[in-house]
């Protein structure tokens, strides 16, 4: 990162101290949490492993954490790692056969689509335990005017969560960068071009894909758990299922699948579009933001498959004459 980026980040970290109000803090937190999830998805997506099933991992992260806390009093400090373990186990259970039997492209997308529906249906079906489609609220540990509970990871003030979300967002970007700079990136790029040829030059295709899937699943589950801790309300439709899984895919495409900050731009763009239109046209008109968003998505995929940020960087690279700055 260059100096300007560090300064911008430093200024951004000061935002909560300026007393901007809960609404703007909420927007910032939501954008950062979803950016973290979207970045986790893009770890796979940028290599052509397009999963339509990340709702499954998000749902596992959110529900396991909350269920352990509500029913067994297990603190999220233990619950979250357990949820992550389960998400990774599910990722292996699905990923290993997929990669072993060379299920790729839209077949992979459809298998993962089935997975996310399985998770959503199981949450709904276990309604006596999970609250079903009505959703569930983690037991509140902030009784008697307590402003925070470390055991429950619940905070009454949004400022605290701002820094938590900021930390995880940066962590997601750090993981992205680490993978980008590793041999795994070259292996994955080779695999996404031609699996047999990659195998022939000594890349263990199944293992490489599996590792990246496990990392992506774990981070997505972590995002789900954080979402639950922040919103203090989860619901099978908002943390799992087809709609959410597609939301993840499309926000990343809108922002730019192949660049580090693409998913972040996607998250900011989609949330600000929804909020902006809501403020502009009011609550009564349902679906306007999604209509515009859907239309833009279609146009994006046809005319600028690299997304908003991808396009911007591309144009800048062309202007400054920098060669090969952006992957096509």
């Amino acid at each position, binding site marked *: 990162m260059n100096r300007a980026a560090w300064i911008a980040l430093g200024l951004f970290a000061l935002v909560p101290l300026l007393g901007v109000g809960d609404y703007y803090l909420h927007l910032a937190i939501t954008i950062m949490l979803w950016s973290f999830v979207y970045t986790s998805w893009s770890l796979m997506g940028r290599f052509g492993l397009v999963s339509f099933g990340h709702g499954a991992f998000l749902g596992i992260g959110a529900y396991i954490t909350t269920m352990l806390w509500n029913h067994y009093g297990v603190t999220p400090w233990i619950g979250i790692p357990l949820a992550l373990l389960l998400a990774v186990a599910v990722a292996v259970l699905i990923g290993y*056969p997929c990669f072993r039997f060379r299920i790729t492209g839209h077949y992979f997308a459809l298998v993962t689509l089935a997975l996310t529906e399985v998770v959503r249906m199981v949450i709904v079906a276990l309604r006596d335990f999970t609250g079903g489609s009505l959703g569930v609220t983690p037991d509140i540990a902030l009784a008697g005017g307590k402003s925070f509970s470390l055991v429950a990871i619940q905070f009454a003030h949004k400022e605290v969560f701002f820094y938590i979300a900021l930390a995880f967002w940066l962590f997601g970007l750090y993981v992205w960068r680490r993978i980008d700079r590793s041999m795994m990136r070259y292996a994955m790029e080779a695999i996404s071009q031609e699996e047999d040829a990659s195998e022939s030059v000594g890349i263990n295709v199944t293992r490489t894909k599996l590792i990246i899937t496990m990392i992506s699943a774990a981070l997505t589950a972590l995002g789900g758990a954080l979402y639950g801790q922040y919103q203090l309300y989860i619901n099978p439709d908002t943390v799992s299922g087809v709609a959410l899984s597609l939301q993840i895919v499309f926000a990343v495409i809108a922002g730019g699948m192949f660049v580090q900050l693409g998913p972040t731009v996607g998250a900011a763009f989609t949330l600000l579009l929804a909020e902006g239109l809501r403020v502009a046209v009011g609550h009564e008109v349902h679906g306007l933001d999604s209509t515009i968003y*859907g239309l833009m998505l279609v146009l994006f995929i046809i005319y600028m498959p690299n997304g908003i940020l991808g396009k911007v960087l591309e144009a800048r690279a062309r202007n400054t004459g920098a060669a090969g700055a952006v992957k096509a």
Partner: protein
Amino acid sequence: MEIFDIFLLETVLNGLLFGGVLALLALGLNLVFGVIDVVWICYAELVMIGMYAVYFLYTVHHVPLLIAFVIGIATVSLSGVALHYFIIRPVLASEPINQLLVTGGMLFFLQAAATLAFGVQFRNLGLALPSVRLGEIMLPQSRIYAAGTALVAMLGLALFLKKTYLGTAIRAISQDRAIMPLMGVNPSRIYLITSAIGGGLAGLAACLLVLQYDVHPAIGLTFGPITFMICVLGGLGNMLGGFIAAFIFAQLISIGGFFFHIEWGYVMAFVFFIVMMFIRPQGLLGRKS
């Protein structure tokens, strides 16, 4: 114990009829995939368009039901053509995943546009077709029609593909899309015709669904995923496989719902799908490529 068995039999029969509904849904998607090699992720949203069309024609404009059906089918057929011409054609040459994504974007768009235009209310025709009684067993008439229509539509499609020149050209394109232009078949024209037929079949499914289910903007999410899975399970593009897969799915859902709860039926069906993908990734009747 005797009553239990009657109910189980009713469940199985109902599952059989539900299988007909699913088979009809899968037919159009399967055709389009087999020929154009594109999965219309927004297929169930096309069905939704048809359901809204029939609903408004019948309840608001008081068009006779059968004429409403015909207009509904034509509407969806045209939507299919428009979808292909404006949305899919520009990305046909790019990576396959882009074709999946672009129709996924259409899913969002159509769902949201329906919310914007019609609101989130559940609407139904207000027509209650009676149930047919077989001894102690009650079977909804609308499902019998749906299953019967599915059978007829499938046979009709098979005959069309086998017996007509156009059908032969469609099958030829699906086997080798590079060589057919040299044989004097214009692929873009065949693609448009296929999209029209695929859309028409979606419209037909819409007519039969609107008799049984309320239409609302999110109805596509109820039927979409299961329709793709049926097509994949049968071997994408394989009509007969899709037909069989539809009945397997319907039985799993029906019987699972009978013994446990309807969601467990779906869980069983989806888990079955995932496991089958590993055992027979080419589908039940698909050939290994």
